């Protein structure tokens, strides 16, 4: 066996190892106990594959033989690109606040989509101008085109999602006949892509990419902030598929396997997310919250306020307390204070649980991450389906910064836009305390029947301040209350 053949096998074996490590890594990430080692396994896989690629036949070809004068330049460019980009991503990833995590995922995901589109572009332009390493068969052109289309959409779409979540851009952007225009762009992209099957021409390739990239922007512009998690997850799956397709074009098994696994897992995750929000994926993409829809029924009664001192004595007497945090808590940065309050309750031998709605936060599980950051152990955190029956046996439920996900009209009022959405059955608790800054409605703009219920009291305050006052009052009962 000569040196080139040996090297070829080493490189291929590294790709195989990477694919195995990715799958095992994702598998380990699906349990809280092994999750951390999971990302590390996948990380090792990535490192191995990246290093091996420097020795890949098509990369290192001509080194030392003088056949290809560009080889050395290309490798230097590679090192430069990897160095600069890794430094940027590493630092930005380390610095970002946990509440801003979703847009960073969107940004990095968009970069991956763009990278896949670039692979497609190079393959198509190379084949069109006859300068490519290898010619492309029809199946390869077709997959290069599809992968490039999906990758381009994911690229520009994720960047828009990033800009929106970062607050750089107005939440929605709509104009008359928008869906018609979008449809036109999509069909043009498909048409140009199909044309490439018959005639590989550089001009058509360029036009195809221009239209595809623009379509990604147009498609994401009208989608509101509340739906962004689903969109980011969808684009994550898109990038995976794009990578898999471009992997086929290159004949690279590592790309095919890793890309397809992510594509399938991402699609499933997107569906779970959309289901938790009671929205179908097409609904998220092609329509908007609150657009029309029947007016919800009026709610009789009034919201009844409560003072922190009274709320604290309710907590003092309770045996079981369930805390329902929403994104409002994270915005108020109250998670640390809430955990402090919980510790005070646990110290007084009360059973404390955190009930998390699947879409609390900006992504499913985002709330868990935010609570974990505050130091809440994950075994105190319960999923919706597990905790819902427990509200009936709970003395006090504290709702902080959550609104639509605890609104009972989702179960009772057929005319409500959120009818059918799974909710936390907070209303079944003996006593509910809602910590809220004012009387406003939630994301969906719907009045919350919970706030008007007989067993519900409103503690109007900023999240942090409310938690602080409750802690102080609890301590006050201990020392001064004297039984």
């Amino acid at each position, binding site marked *: 066996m000569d040196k080139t053949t040996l090297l070829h096998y080493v490189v291929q074996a590294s790709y195989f190892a990477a694919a195995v490590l*990715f799958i095992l*890594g*994702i598998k380990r*990430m*699906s349990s*809280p106990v092994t*999750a*951390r080692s999971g*990302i590390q396994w*996948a*990380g090792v896989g*990535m490192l191995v594959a*990246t290093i091996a690629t*420097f020795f890949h036949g098509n990369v290192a070809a001509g080194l030392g033989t003088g056949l290809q004068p*560009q080889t050395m330049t*290309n490798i230097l*460019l590679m090192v430069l*690109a*990897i160095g600069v*980009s*890794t430094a*940027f*991503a*590493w630092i930005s*990833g*380390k610095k*970002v606040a946990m509440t801003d*995590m*979703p847009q960073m*995922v969107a940004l990095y*995901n968009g*970069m*991956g989509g*763009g*990278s896949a589109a670039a692979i497609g572009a*190079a393959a198509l332009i*190379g084949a069109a101008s006859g300068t490519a*390493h290898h010619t492309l068969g029809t199946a390869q052109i077709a997959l290069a085109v599809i992968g490039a289309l999906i990758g381009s959409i994911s690229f520009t779409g994720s960047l828009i999602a990033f800009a929106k979540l970062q607050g750089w851009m107005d939440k929605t952007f709509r104009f008359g006949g928008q869906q018609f225009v979008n449809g036109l762009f999509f069909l043009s992209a498909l048409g140009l892509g199909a044309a490439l099957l018959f005639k590989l021409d550089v001009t058509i390739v360029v036009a195809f990419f221009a239209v595809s990239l623009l379509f990604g922007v147009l498609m994401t512009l009208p989608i509101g902030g509340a739906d962004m998690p689903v969109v*980011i*997850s969808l684009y*994550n799956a898109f990038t*995976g598929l794009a990578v*898999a397709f471009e992997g086929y074009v290159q004949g690279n098994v590592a790309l095919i396997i*890793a*890309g*397809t*696994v*992510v594509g*399938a897992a991402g699609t499933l*995750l997107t569906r*779970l997310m959309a289901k938790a929000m009671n929205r179908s994926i097409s609904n998220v993409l092609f329509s908007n919250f609150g657009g029309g829809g029947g007016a919800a029924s009026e709610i009789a009664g009034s919201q009844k306020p409560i003072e922190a001192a009274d709320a604290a004595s309710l907590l003092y007497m309770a045996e079981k307390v369930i805390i329902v945090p929403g994104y409002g808590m994270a915005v108020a940065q109250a998670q640390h204070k809430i955990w402090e309050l919980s510790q005070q309750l646990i110290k007084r031998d009360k059973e404390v649980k955190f009930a*998390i709605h699947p879409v609390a936060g900006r*992504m499913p*599980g*985002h709330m868990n*991450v935010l609570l*974990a950051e505050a130091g809440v*152990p994950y075994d105190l955190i319960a*999923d*919706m389906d597990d905790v819902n029956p427990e509200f009936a046996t709970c003395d006090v439920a504290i709702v902080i910064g959550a609104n639509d996900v605890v609104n009972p009209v989702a179960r009772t009022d057929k005319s409500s836009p959120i009818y059918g959405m799974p909710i936390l059955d907070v209303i079944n608790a003996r006593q509910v305390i809602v910590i809220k800054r004012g009387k406003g409605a939630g994301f969906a703009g719907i009045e919350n029947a919970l706030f008007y219920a007989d067993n519900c009291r409103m503690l109007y305050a900023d999240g942090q301040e409310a938690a602080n006052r409750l802690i102080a009052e609890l301590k006050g009962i201990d020392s001064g209350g004297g039984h």
Partner: protein
Amino acid sequence: MISGEIALYLFMLAAFTGHEIISRVPVILHTPLMSGSNFVHGIVLVGAMITLGEATTLTQQVIGFVGVFLGAGNAAGGYVVTERMLEMFKSSKKEGAK
């Protein structure tokens, strides 16, 4: 080069794998897992490196350079963000033992 039908089998098996490994995941891990799978498709970096390595014209070098730059950002950023999230997950039992 991989032949068409073998690629088809690969797609199918990998899709099942992706579906299987994620279907029993507790909600608390959805965000880290989305972030983790985001990291895994950073393998696109490898493909972009090969594209740049094969480049013979200036256009291809530019496209390849952009591809590698974006791919590396995906991989590095995806890793850091996921690691930071997972670092925070701990059980109350372990804490009690400390």
